[in-house]
């Protein structure tokens, strides 16, 4: 291995994991004073960098920031819709009712005239109902998400509150 390659490996820090590379580096360091000096300097640099890692956040600053953050978190809870809005529940109920009313005569005709089993009719109803719900779902979700401050975890919150 050449000196620039050794330098890169020493800086990379993951050379100790491979025994083959470790042995090669040790051999190189024994015969190359320049790289040996580089390795020593690098070690000192890392020790010095560890000195800087002892810096901590000032207590006054952290406590003030923490209290502000907590109040912000509290505000976001207060403005959070705690349950599904009444208008969404009403609309969903109406949709279900309309679907059933609309599907009922069709199913009745099918049952009386073509001799279709009622369970088939029920499945058809459910399919239609789900199709309508899916049609409106993006709109409902978008409105709800905007109101819930774009939170996609609203359901977790709703479970926790209940």
């Amino acid at each position, binding site marked *: 291995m050449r000196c620039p390659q050794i*330098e*890169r490996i020493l*800086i*990379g820090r993951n050379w100790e994991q491979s025994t083959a590379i470790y042995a090669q580096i040790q051999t190189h360091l024994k015969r190359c004073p320049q790289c040996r000096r*580089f390795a020593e*300097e*690098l070690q*000192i*640099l*890392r020790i*010095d*960098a*560890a*000195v*800087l*890692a002892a*810096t*901590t*956040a*000032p207590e006054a*600053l*952290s406590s003030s*920031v*923490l209290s*502000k*953050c*907590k109040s*912000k*978190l*509290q505000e*976001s*809870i207060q403005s*959070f819709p705690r349950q599904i809005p009444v208008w969404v529940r009403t609309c969903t109920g109406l949709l279900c009712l309309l679907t059933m009313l609309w599907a009922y005569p069709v199913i009745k005709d099918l049952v009386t005239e073509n001799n279709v089993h009622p369970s088939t009719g029920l499945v058809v109803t459910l399919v239609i109902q789900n199709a309508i719900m899916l049609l409106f779902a993006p709109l409902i979700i978008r409105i709800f998400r905007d109101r819930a*401050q*774009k*939170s*996609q*975890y609203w359901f*977790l*919150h709703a479970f*926790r509150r209940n």
Partner: protein
Amino acid sequence: MEPSDDELVYRIRIHDEEAFELLFKRYKSMVYRYSHYLTLNSTEAEDLFQDTWFRVVKYLPSYGKIESIHAWICKITSNLYRDLLRKKKYQRILFKDKPYTSVTSDENVENVVLEVKDHGRKTEVRIEMQRAIALLPYRQRQVFILKEIEGFKLSEIGQSLQMPLGTVKSLHYRAVRHMRNELCDLQFKG
């Protein structure tokens, strides 16, 4: 037993204040150090520290999957610092202010040393290290702080700074070489 980062994130997402406090205590020093060594100015570092945590509160509940929370927090700090630099640049252009002094200028390096003395940390190593960090180019400085001071993995640095792994490796190599050259005298004095 201390809760894991993932658990804390999950709890914060359901607006658990206690979990946020734990996360804050766990990473406050990291955020402060990163802000401090990036800006090399106490006032700016405090502003950056505060804004970072405000953003964490605002976006953590609605953010998608987070692989590493400390890398994500550092990403916020880096973005805020980049905005700060941009703002300074625009101020200079718009208001024809005095020329923008990057932290690599001699004047700022002196400020760094004075601030350190004000805080009572007069060790030569610390001062020289800060002086050398101040002389590093912006991107090298980010990588050096995260790798050598905070002990991040290179992949995490890539996530934080939105850089490919190769770029991170190269910046780290150049930063270490730069620091070594700057600190050569100090090492051989000691």
